[in-house]
Structure formats: structure tokens, C-alpha cells
């Protein structure tokens, strides 16, 4: 456990360095997840509805965890339920992407639960590559499409 934490810390440190090195560049980080604000909506003021993933990955980086901390706090306070949608970019086979979207949505669900959100408050659905938010075929669009979106249940 501690080893993993140390490794994560090391990755974060390296990343921070890389990011500062290309701060004026595109919004995709060196690890190819999206870090901009285009396409992002809000569950409530200051609570972004989505987090972004690296290609073929479902791990949550620091910024994603920051967003999910806000979501967790909001869900607990409001008593609302959410559906977490898992999405993939168009650069993978359809069936694998369905599984990958499900894995991403569950990574988010697990994290929200680790922050004290009741399991009954969060359901998941995978859309694979079927519902991109940006229809362009570009690296930027793909990074925006590799995402989870938490949607309030009405």
C-alpha cells in the first residue's frame, strides 16, 4: 500500500513538472487526459460533473479525485442520487470500449463511496464510445470524450 502511494506521489510530481513545462500548450496533459474546462458542466456551483481519463485507463488522477471529492460532498449534503456514465473515445473496438466505460464509471463510483457516499446513491452505466461529447476526430476531442459524467437522478 505504502509503496503504491509513493509511486503515485512520484508520478504526480513528475506530472506537475511536465505540466508546468507546457503550460501554454494544449489542454491535454502529458499523460493524455483532458485538463481544460470546455465541455464541463456543473452538478451545482463549483461541482464539476465530469472527470477525464488517459487512453485505455480507468485510474483517477489527482485532479479527478479533487472533482470527485466535491461531488461526494455535494451528494452527501443534497441527498441526491447520481448515475455515473462511463465513456470511451472512438479509437477502440466497440465491445472493449463498453467494458472500459463500465470500468471507468465503477472507478468513480468506488471513489465516491470511499468518500462516504452510500452505495445506493450511485448507479453506473457505460456508453462505451457511443456518446462522444466532441464529434471531432482529434487528440483533443478524444481526451474530452474519455470521461465519466455524474448525472443527477430526477
Amino acid at each position, binding site marked *: 500500500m505504502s509503496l503504491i502511494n509513493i509511486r503515485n506521489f512520484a508520478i504526480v510530481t513528475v506530472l506537475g513538472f511536465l505540466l508546468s513545462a507546457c503550460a501554454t500548450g494544449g489542454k491535454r496533459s502529458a499523460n493524455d487526459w483532458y485538463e481544460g474546462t470546455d465541455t464541463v458542466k456543473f452538478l451545482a456551483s463549483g461541482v464539476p460533473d465530469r472527470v477525464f481519463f488517459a487512453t485505455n485507463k480507468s485510474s483517477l488522477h489527482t485532479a479527478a479525485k479533487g472533482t470527485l471529492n466535491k461531488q461526494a460532498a455535494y451528494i452527501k449534503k443534497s441527498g441526491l442520487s447520481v448515475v455515473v456514465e462511463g465513456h470511451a473515445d472512438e479509437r477502440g473496438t*466497440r*465491445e*472493449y470500449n463498453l467494458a472500459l466505460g463500465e470500468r471507468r464509471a*465503477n*472507478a468513480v463510483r468506488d471513489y465516491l463511496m470511499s468518500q462516504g457516499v452510500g452505495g445506493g446513491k450511485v448507479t453506473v452505466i457505460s456508453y462505451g464510445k457511443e456518446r462522444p461529447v466532441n*464529434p*471531432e476526430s482529434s487528440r483533443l476531442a478524444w481526451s474530452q470524450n474519455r470521461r465519466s459524467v455524474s448525472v443527477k437522478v430526477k
Partner: protein
Amino acid sequence: MKRLSLLLILTLFITKSFAVVTIDITRGNLEPLPTAISNFYIDNPERFSENIKKLNLDKNLPKVIKSNLTRSGLFYVLDNKSYIQKPKLSHLKPRFEDWKLIKAQIMISGKLKIDDKGRLRVEFRLWDVVSAKEIEGLALFATPSSWRRIAHIISDKIYQRLTGEEGYFDTRIIYVAESGPKTQRVKKLAIMDQDGANNKFLTLGNELVLTPRFSPNGKMVTYMSYFKNLPRVYLLNIETGIQEVVGDFPGMTFAPRFSPDGKKVIMSFARDGNSDIYTMDVKSRRVEQITSNPAIDTSPSYSPDGRFIVFNSDRSGLQQIYVMRNDGRGVKRISRGKGLYGTPVWSPRGDLIAFTKIHKGKFYIGVMRTNGTGERLLTQNFYQEAPSWSPNGRVLIFYRETAGGKKGQGASANLWAVDITGYNEVKIKTPTDASDPSWSGLLSK
């Protein structure tokens, strides 16, 4: 389909003499066989009603045969303006010198008749021009409205006579018809004849549908639907239109395919971020878990004898192809090249596995032997995946997408086919954009 085949009565007749002309389909065919297809002649025009006349069967039936044979890449059909002999004599007493003159190596002729029961009788003959012999002949009966199927059966007969292997023309394709913007794509199940005729939509597009696959007898389809926003595997009876969900799974089921005996559906079930492979017996509804691994296991496909399953897993870290016994034991990775591998499908001949490969930002359709050796990449593109085999294991149909611009403009999805030799890549025309094709078996089998 049952109904149709009852109307088709096949009577094999005439000769079976030794053919001098043959086609070797194991190699890429760079020199298609020069072929003449005469118009068919009408034996009793007085019995042809106005409605039947309107079908122009004397021209259209040979035209469908021409289109089939041309698309196979194995035949080059000579322009019929160059034909010297008239259809009737071509069929009854061909002058081979006339056909040799235009360099035809084979000639196809036919006769149409409406019989006492109002059925259409089609007789065709295949002539070896070089050895001046008839090498195949067949008479078929059907309701006039199913004339296209007769043309397909004749095409199969010609293909079989000259290649020594079963054809694939009397078949259908089920696929997903696509429309609307990429961000809100509307998807419907659609079915059509192998040549694109008789296109029919099976769902309305109210919910997302994906990955339809035929049962071995072509009567059922298994596919995935987001009906009521619950992504699940469904069964659809094409004749009755009755749909039902497969199994009672508390989460997403996807990537379905029938077992070769049609008794089971094999698919993935995703729970808590993990996808494993399950089967469900269609009759008893009994569910069995086949893989149990924390990685993603998906895209399962049985070997034609049902003893093995090829599937896609990222247990090594990234998508690769694995083979296991049908009980889930003896898992072996077979994809060894550089890059990612997905969508494995076992050939109906049992000898090859078709797949999608992703390497350095390009997508390939390829084949490898079942132990992973002999990998051959058949086609490369910006995006393509999901190969499905022709019933004779000689052709793959798949879908290809083009890149989208700023607002997705220019993005398209279409069906394509390629021979396993890597030759004869052809676009399959569909009325709308199309993806996820599945090829049926021979309908008259």
C-alpha cells in the same frame, strides 16, 4: 425464411461433365475469369402477367448474377453488347466460336417459364467455352417475387462449380443503420440481402442498438440494446419480431454471439468494473460463468466445433486475443505481434481467426491461425473493426469509419468486404451509414 425455402424447389438436372475451367481461390485472383452472361430467354411470354413482365426478369435475373460474380473478384463479366448469339440459341445450342471470339472462357445462359401453377421456373446452364461443353445445369421453381433468391442460388452454383467451394450469395447481412450527428447517433437494426437489396429496418431507432449477430440458422438475432436505458443482450426472432432480454443479469450484458449449434448465447457481463464471459442456454435459460478474471474479458466467439472459445482480454495490461476450452480452462494468449488486438472471430472453416488490430494509430483487419501464427494484415485504415465471416470462410465483412472534422463533418460509417487473400476490397452499399455487420449462413441450407 422457412416459408421462402418451401417455395423453392430445386431440381438438379442435366450433366456433370469434367470442367476444364477452374478458379483457384486460395491465391489472390489477379486475373478474373472472362465470363459471358447472356440474357435469359422467355419460353412462354403469353403466361407472363403485366406484373411479372414489369420485373424484367430476362434482363434483371442475369444482372443480379453478374453483380454477384463481379463483386467476388473472381469473374470479369464481359459487356453484353459484344455478345453475338441471341439468348435462346445461347441456351439451347451455343455456337462456341462466337463466345471464343469475344474471349469468354465460360458462358451462362437461361430460360424463364411460368408453369401451370403460376410458379416461375428458371433454368440455367453453365458452359465451358474452351472445351465446348455444358458443365452445370439447374432448374428452380419459386414464386416470381422471390426471383432474386433464384439469382443468388444460381450464382452460388456457378461459384461452387468453378472454385470447388460453397458460395455465399444466397445470404443476408444484419447490421446497424446509423443516422444523425455523432454526439446523438440514432441506430437501428437493419437486414438486407448480401448484395444490398431488400433492405429492411427492424427497430425504430428509439433506443441505441449494437452488435447484432445471426443464429446459425439465420432465424434469430442476438444483439445489445439500451432499451429503457438498461444495456442488455436481447434475442430477436426475425420472423415473428418477438424480442426478449437474455438472462436476468443485474448489470450490463454485451458482446453476444451464438454457439455454433445455436443452443447458447455467449456474451460478457460487466459488474463492479469487471467484465467476464458467460453463456446462457436459450431453451433452459441456464446461465454459466466461463471466465473469472479481474481483467476485461469480452468479444467471445466459438470455434465451429464448439470446443473452443476465442476472446479478447486485457489481463496482460492491454487488449490481446486468447483461446480457451469451452469450459473456460486452458487459457492461452495467441496474439503476439506489436499493438492491440480485438474482436476475434473464428472462421466457419475452423482454420483462422479474424481480428482487429490497433497499432500506431492505425486500424487493421487481419487473420491468424488459431495458435496465433501466420498473422496476415488484410487492410489498413483510420478506423475499422468488427469482421464477420462469409459462410465459406473466404470473405470478411467489417465496418470502416472516416475521421470527423470540427463539428464531426465528414465522419461516416460504411460496410466493406475483403477477401482473406487481401484482394478485392469492396464497399457494400447501404441506404444509410452502417456498422456492426453480421453475415448469415446460406439461407437454403
